[in-house]
């Protein structure tokens, strides 16, 4: 359970129009879970900030559980793979 895997933290429509502010918000939120701003930057894979709000990050199962309980978060979902058709 301590293994980090990519999770998508989905937060719905954007809270701001400024993409930089949105990414900063994502880092701040992730930092509250992983312990520091540096660790948040390290574990974040993507910040989704144009069409909607959310981020992809490498999280342990317990971190994913904690972050899913934050009021800003709609869902935390494990990364998954698609194939060509």
């Amino acid at each position: 359970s301590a293994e980090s895997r990519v999770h998508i933290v989905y937060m719905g429509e954007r809270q701001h129009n400024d993409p930089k502010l949105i990414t900063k918000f994502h880092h701040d939120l992730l930092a509250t879970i992983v312990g520091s701003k540096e660790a948040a930057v390290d574990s974040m894979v993507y910040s989704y900030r144009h069409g909607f709000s959310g981020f992809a990050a490498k999280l342990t199962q317990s971190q994913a559980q904690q972050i899913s309980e934050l009021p800003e978060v709609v869902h935390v979902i494990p990364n998954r793979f698609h194939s060509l058709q």
Partner: protein
Amino acid sequence: TTRTWDYLDISSYSPLNLLHDTHMGDGIIIGLLDTGVWPESVVFNDDGLEPIPARWKGHCESGQLFNGTTDCNRKLIGAKYFIDGFLAENNQPFNTTDNPDYMSPRDSFGHGTHTSTIAGGSFVANASYKGLALGTSRGGAPRARIAMYKVCWNVPQGQCSSADILKAFDEAIHDGVDVLSLSLGTQIPLFAEVDERDGIAIGSFHAVANGIPVVCAAANDGPAAQTVHNTAPWIITVAATTLDRSFPTPIMLGNNVTILGQAWYAGKEIGLTGLVYPENPGLRPALAGVCESLSFNHTSVDGKVVLCFTTVTRRSAVSSAVSAVRAAGGVGLIVAKNPGHVMGPCGDDFPCVVVDYELGTQILFYIRSARSPTVTISPSKTLVGKPASTKVATFSSRGPSSITPAILKPDIAAPGVSLLAASSPLDTFMNGGFALHSGTSMAAPVISGIIALLKAKHPNWSPAAIRSAIVTTAWKTDPFGEPIFAEGSPRKLADPFDFGGGLVNPNRASKPGLVYDMDTDDYVHYLCAVGYNDSAISKLVRQGIACPSAKPSVLDVNVPSITIPNLRNSATLTRRVTNVGPPNSTYKALVESPFGITITVTPNILVFHSTAQEISYQVRVSTSHQVNTGYYFGSLTWTDGVHNVTIPISARTQILQNYADEN
């Protein structure tokens, strides 16, 4: 693409059609989430194109063997790649030695080059695969611009991480694409839309909220029912049909009977050669002749053509039989199988010809009756038009939706079998820059190209209005009036679970008369109806949403179809139509009731005038069946004498509900 557009009646030679009405999609930007592009392909030539639209915010990203400045032009205006999610999940560098690929938007697989050609490739004369399917290749919107978002990587089957897919959606929305095309699927069982683990439902929700139609492949898990993917009601889900084109390959038996098989054989004629069917002595002689496990212990095949039988409709049985026959010195293969619509070449001009069981049995009886059976195999030819017929492809995933059976999926069908389009030089099926490929992957960009044309003609139509236009005007027959069959065992007439509204009819879709429009409120209605909580829906749309205490009915979601999976006695549902034709119009309802079902429409006449352009109506559906039934099909058409706005109706009586019917 050398036949598709003529077949769908948007030929470039005809001056009066949607293609010419819209300047071939000029100014529209088609985004694709796929395996990248081969930018040197001639299909990306930008001859005669105007400058890149000023509103475009995207760009081309440089990387391995891809120069963002010089590899893009006025046709290919965007190219980005997303691999961080894929790498982070695998916890190791991507091994491009084992899986040749490029750390850039460059396509090694060929899939993205193929799909982008279909949607928006430029005109290329004399395109063919070794002379087969010869003609002028072009996309549905040949003057549209292409933006490629590479999210799939060259590991077996092509793998695309949902984290990367979501980032591509995020960027594409920002960049300003007009339509998004995704030829991707996941695995069954599916995840619910808002909880979905694949990113497509979530990303597409926001794209659609920004006015961008999202077109997705229905997937290739057919012909079994309930296998359709990408089922969210805001997605346009595409099934695959054949074209009126085939590749007959003459097999002349030693008794002078000629059978026309199907192949892509462009080699020399295999003249008068021995013909064998491997059979074992003993109780189960036919086992040795099963294509996927051929055994030559009792049969010499050296220098001969081999006949085998298989129940596997996929390509794998043919591939393994080819390997076995070639290794044993055989010079050709005839495969008897049910149609799978996944043709392919068999190595370097090795003839492998597919026939059905009936013809295969005829060949077998000849072998068994002749002392020295012989055969001659001639090169394949391209047959266009009659008598080649249109069928829903075997592989095309079927409805009803396993998540929400009350929302009809797939929405629409388009050609997706043996489409010729550009590919990558690393594609083993490619010859002279072009390859023939099959899949709902190929059908989806046909629709994307058509939607690019519709967007050019009707820039203010919502994604739902565009979906409604193509569904309500689709052909229920082929373009020549012949019925469309759905391939499977047995072959049957196609119904809405095979092809949604039917085969796309681009010209009629441009003038639908009425549309079943939807906006965010309608999608919220859907999310409330299927049980998502207020909090999740509120965050999704960033508005305070309180679902009504009396849960809304999913049957009332304003989709251009009526599907009732659990009818017991009767149900009443509501639809709302918006007039997009002449402001003063009167439409009358015509109902074709499903067997044993009574349909009453109220009102049955809709009168539109300058202050009433949107009207709701109710449909009461009641059943006379007294047992749990399968689905019966019908339709409801609103007609003003010029426009016929038809939605499919599917109803299943369930006296005993939530009941697994396997007695």
